[in-house]
Each structure stands twice: as C-alpha cells, then as structure tokens.
C-alpha cells in the first residue's frame, strides 16, 4: 500500500510544484477534452491520419546485477518519419531485425518511444495519457502474426472478440455484445454459431480471421498488421488477403501492413516503405518502389525474391548481397547499408544519407523522383529485367 501511494505521488510532480491543485486539474481536464474531441473528429480520405516524425526507440543494454550500468543500446528504430493517409495501405518491408515490428509496437503505444513524435489527427500520442490515450488506442488496433499464440486457448471465441468491449464499454452496451460479436464473425466469414468454440477447434486461416474480428471490434480507423499471413498456407493466404482488402473498403480503414514477403506487400499496398537497420531506406508508391527503385538495398531485396516463373530464371540478373545484417547495437557509421553495398565509397562512411528525393531526379516527374536515402541513388529496374 505504502508503495502504491509513493508511486502515485511520484507520478504527479506537478501537484507538488504548484500551490493550487484544483486549478491545474481543471486545466488538464480541459486539454484532455480537447484532445479527445480532436481524436473523435473525422479525417477526409486522402488526408494524413498518422504522421510519424523522427521516431526513435533504443533498448538499453545493461551490465551488472546490483548496480546496473548502461553499456550501450540496441538502436531498433533510429529516426524514421512517414505519413499514413486515410483509407490507404502503407506497406513496410525489411529483413528480420530491421525494426519493423518495433515501429508497430510504438504506433500502438505498447512501447514508449525514446524520442520523436507520432501525431494521430494532430495529437502526439507519445505524450497522451488517460482518456485521450484510451480514445487513441480504440482507434488504432492490431492484427498479430501468429494466430496460434495470439489467441488465449482458454477463452471462447466470443470472449476473445468481446474482450475489447470490456475495456471500452461505450462502444457496445452489455446486453448488446453477444449480437455484436456474432455480427463480427459474420463479417470475417466465420459461422456466427461458432461463438462458443475455442481457438484449437479452428484452422490457422480461421484463427487469423478471429484475430481480424478482434481488431475490428472497436470500429478502429487504423489497423496495424504485423505479418498477418506469413504463418498461413499459400491457398489460405489469398483468402485472408482478399478478406482484408474487402474490409478496408467496407469500413474505410487505413492499414499499416508489415511483412517480409515483398510480393504480398505489393499486392495490398498503395505505398511502400523499405526499412534497413532501424532507418527508412526508401519510400514511395508501389510502382515507384517496385518498378523504379533507386536505393541499392531495395534493388538487392527485390532481385532476391524468387519469381514463380521458370522462364525468367536464366535471364534474370540477380544481386546477391554478401554477409549478414550488422548488429543494431553497433550499426556502421554513415550509411548503414554501406557494409553490404556494392556502390559504397568514402562518402558513405562519413555522411548519413538523408531520406529525400535524390537531387538528380528532383523536379522531374519521373517515377524515380521519390524519397530515397542514398548518396548515389540511381534508377534500376530489377524486377522486370
């Protein structure tokens, strides 16, 4: 008990500093109301709904048991910026360890950012708390990768999908919940009579549908999908992808679609961001990235994807990178890709390339004129070659 009280005091340093406590509270309540109002407001299609600015997440590495000293940091996400527009799908691709899942967690405020801002309808969600944060969380939902571990095996499907209503009771009044859950099951293509079944009675694809139904329960505006189909069989993958596309149109959703399968990302995304070691290497529309990539990493990544067409296997030029991704605890100086890049020069070790439209393409309306973080950005079509 004593501990809890102490904590509460520590949480409110402002109360000690200012003599008039009630006044501070009313001011805070007023800003909170304004924040909630801003979050409840509608955003038009095509307007930015989520703006990420210089987002950073470092996980400290500590040494010692009693006296912990920080000896370094894993720079999982190291300054990335992008916008998500209402109604679009932004794909994020990259190899394992590039920080794409950490970005998802930061956007969900499941992790606190080390630095940087995430604006949801103009409100910086990294600084929100209380009612305003709850309102944000209701509007940003997530679908997880592994449908086998992300559903509690001891809860029925009805309880799993209905659980968000316990936390946000304003969305569905108590008596109405069962019917709502059945509606959701119907929406994702499952039989509403399955409401009392347990997750183990479903196949992988059906479980992922349950995960999607849970994500939809609170009528969110943004759904963050972290590798939603990579655990599924090919024939089932297509079903789930089609379902997600249908739901996007039906409920006017914006997706952030994180995956390592570049073909699926192209299929579903309007815009694509390529991440490498905690940084955004290149971002643009799907045609710009896939047909006119300018960053060497994107080119290598695309050329490494096996194409399901044996005719192309002799003729296709493939860039095969050497070595592995460096450790994010100790990333290379300058451009992070330079250790594996065939174009690297001295400049790449000294200067960090900024994510911007390359100078040589600036002002032209060529599809190569999109943001790319490379000193020697050059267009090269590797997919059709």
């Amino acid at each position, binding site marked *: 008990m004593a501990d809890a009280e102490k904590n509460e005091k520590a949480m409110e340093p402002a109360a000690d500093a200012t003599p008039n406590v009630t006044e501070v509270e009313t001011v805070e309540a007023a800003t909170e109301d304004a924040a909630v109002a801003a979050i409840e407001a509608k955003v038009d299609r095509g307007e930015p709904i989520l703006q990420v600015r210089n987002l950073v997440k470092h996980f400290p590495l500590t040494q010692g048991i009693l006296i912990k000293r920080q000896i370094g940091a894993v720079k999982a996400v190291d300054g990335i910026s992008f916008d998500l527009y209402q109604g679009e799908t932004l794909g994020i691709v990259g190899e*394992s360890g590039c920080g794409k899942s950490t970005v998802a967690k930061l956007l969900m405020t499941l992790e606190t950012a080390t630095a940087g801002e995430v604006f949801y309808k103009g409100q910086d969600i990294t600084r929100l708390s209380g009612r305003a944060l709850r309102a944000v969380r209701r509007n940003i939902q997530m679908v997880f990768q592994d449908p086998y571990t992300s559903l509690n095996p001891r809860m029925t499907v009805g309880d799993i999908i209905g659980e968000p209503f316990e936390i946000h009771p304003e969305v569905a009044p108590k008596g109405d919940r069962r019917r709502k859950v059945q509606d959701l099951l119907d929406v994702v293509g499952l039989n509403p009579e399955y409401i009392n079944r347990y997750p183990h009675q479903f*196949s992988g694809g059906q479980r992922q549908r349950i995960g999607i139904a849970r994500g939809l329960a609170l009528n969110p505006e943004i759904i963050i999908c972290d590798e939603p189909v990579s655990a599924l069989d090919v*024939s089932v993958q297509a079903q789930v992808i089609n379902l997600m596309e249908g739901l996007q149109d039906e409920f006017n959703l914006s997706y952030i679609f994180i995956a390592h399968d570049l073909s699926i990302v*192209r*299929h579903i995304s309007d815009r694509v961001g390529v991440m490498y070691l905690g940084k955004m290497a290149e971002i643009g529309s799907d*045609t710009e990235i896939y047909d006119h990539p300018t960053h060497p990493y994107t080119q290598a990544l695309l050329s490494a994807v096996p194409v399901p067409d044996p005719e*192309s296997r002799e003729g296709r030029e493939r860039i095969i990178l050497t070595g592995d991704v460096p450790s994010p605890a100790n990333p290379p100086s300058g451009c992070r890709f330079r250790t594996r890049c065939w174009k690297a020069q001295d400049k790449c070790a000294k200067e960090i390339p900024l994510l911007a439209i390359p100078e040589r393409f600036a002002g032209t309306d060529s599809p190569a004129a999109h943001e790319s973080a490379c000193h020697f950005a050059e267009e090269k079509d590797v*997919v059709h070659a």
Partner: protein
Amino acid sequence: MTITDMPADVPVPRSGEDHGSKLLDVRDLHVEFHTRDGIAKAVNGVNYSVDAGETLAVLGESGSGKSVTAQAIMGILDMPPGRIPQGEIFFRGQDMLKMSAEERRKIRGNKIAMIFQDALSSLNPVLSVGYQLGEMFRVHEGLSRKEAKTKAIELMDRVRIPAAKERVSDYPHQFSGGMRQRIMIAMAMALEPDLIIADEPTTALDVTVQAQVMELLAELQREYHMGLILITHDLGVVADVADKIAVMYAGRIVETAPVHELYKRPAHPYTRGLLDSIPRLDRKGQELYAIKGLPPNLLKIPTGCAFNPRCPKAEDICRTDVPALVPVTEQDGTELPGRGSACHFWKETLHG
C-alpha cells in the same frame, strides 16, 4: 467406392528389375499414424524418383505429407506412432524398407543426407559446431577428434563461412540464421552423399539470405553431381531451381511435370489454383484467386478425389472415384514425357 489408383506408370515405367537405373525410386509408399482419434493417413501411395544430378521439388501445403515422405526415405520416422503399411523405397536398386537397421544406418548420412528447416532447433546448442560437423567423420569414417576438426574447418570453408578456423569452436547461437543454415548444409555435404533431401531449407530465412543459401546449394549440387529433393511450399523457389516437380495434396501426388511445363500449363485444378493465388512481384494484380475451403483433415480424407470439396470443377465421379495419376498427353495424343495428373478431368484442365 472403386479405387482406380494403381501404382502409376508416371514418371517411371514400371518394368520389373528396372530399379537400378534410378538413384532413388519411391513406389506406392503409404505412411499412417495411429493416434487416439483414429488413423491419420499422411501418405497414401506416393511414387517418385530422382536421378543423380537432378532436382526434384516436392510442392505442397502443410499436412500434404511431403515431409513425412522424406522422413520415411531417411528412416527417421517415429515408429510408433508411425507405420509404413505398404510401399517400397529403392535406393540404387535396393529396397531400403527391407534392410536391417545397421544397413540403413550406413546409408543414412553417408549416401543420403538431409537438411532440416529450422537450423537453430536442429543443431545441438551445447556442442560446438566443429564437434557436430566432425561427428560425421568420427562415426562413419572413424577419424580421430583432431582429424575430424580439420575436416570440419574444410567443410566450413567450402560453404563459405568466413574465418572458419576461428569459428569452428563457436556454438550455434553465435551464428546468424543464414550461417546456421550453411552449417546444416555443410553437415549434409560432409560425406559427399549421392542424394540430399532439403526440407524447407530457406523458409526461416530472409530473402537476401535465402538467395545466398539457394545459390550455394545449387553450386554444390552441380559440383558433386548429387540428386536433390527439395521440399517446399514456395512456388518462387521451385521455379528457380527445380528440374521437375511433384505436387502433393492430402498424401498423394496430384501432378508431376517438368518445371517449365507446370507453370505454363498446369494439368490439375489444385496446381492451377495455387499458381493463381500467389501475388506477383512484377505486376500489380486485381483480387487474388483464392482456393475456397481448407486442406482436409488427415483423419477423414474426403472420399474420391481428396480435393473435390475445394475444386471448382468437381462432379459426381470426383466424389466417388479416386483418380489415378495418369500420363498426360497433348490433344493429338503426343506424349508429354514426365507429365502426369491425378484428375478425372485433366484433359479439360490442360487443354480447356
């Protein structure tokens, strides 16, 4: 229900003593698992063969029996609960299922080796990689520890692990995913086997590393003129490396074809569905074609063609008669070597 599934003549003509010419020849293999809920029929009459220097890709979804077939060939199936009620596996003309355990042990690792999917869980975490690589030489060739270690370093060099000498006493967790998979490949290559079975060798890897590993595998195969059975669900990887393909569904081979033919003109609705349901990197498609329904439960495989509940072309005969894997021909009857389809309506699928 009539069973028309005779051991099919595709792709090998069944002519008595003709086992000698093929490196590996699997004939009418059945595998079942006895479980509390009943008998799960994982493999229901599989026929395939591999020659030296040839790459056979076995394509299928999870539960299609592709890995179980490989385990039966290796002789590493858990028995019980597994059982092989019928079938023959000829390796250089000898039926391995009739051999003694000792004879099989001599073949395993020495003549036929396997690369497993998940390198981290297939390597022993408490033994150094050098020790694990050297084990092959110590056990099969009786080399001393020191000699085995030298051999291990050679192997690591061959699969291009940088600084092999320094890294030989490292433990598996100190290697990255791609490097671990190289160690798995080195281990399989150790005794220069005639046949390598690679069970989803790159599924756990990133695309850039996958490309490195597949290239290495292809290069080693060319160098040693080995047979390779590549088990995968990735149609892209198959298109890149395979010579011929066997598509499996519910424990049967539903289609066999040379790689170019299969992608151009599939002769089974399941293969066609799979090809249509993958998004392409080089073009932005419309809505994806999705095969409806789910892969069957192996405890109760549908009667007739196992694919019939999901097939857009299914008719009454599909629900009663099991289609045999029959040779596929051109419209005018010209033979298409190596092609076969287990569909009652292969003509319509191929030519329609």
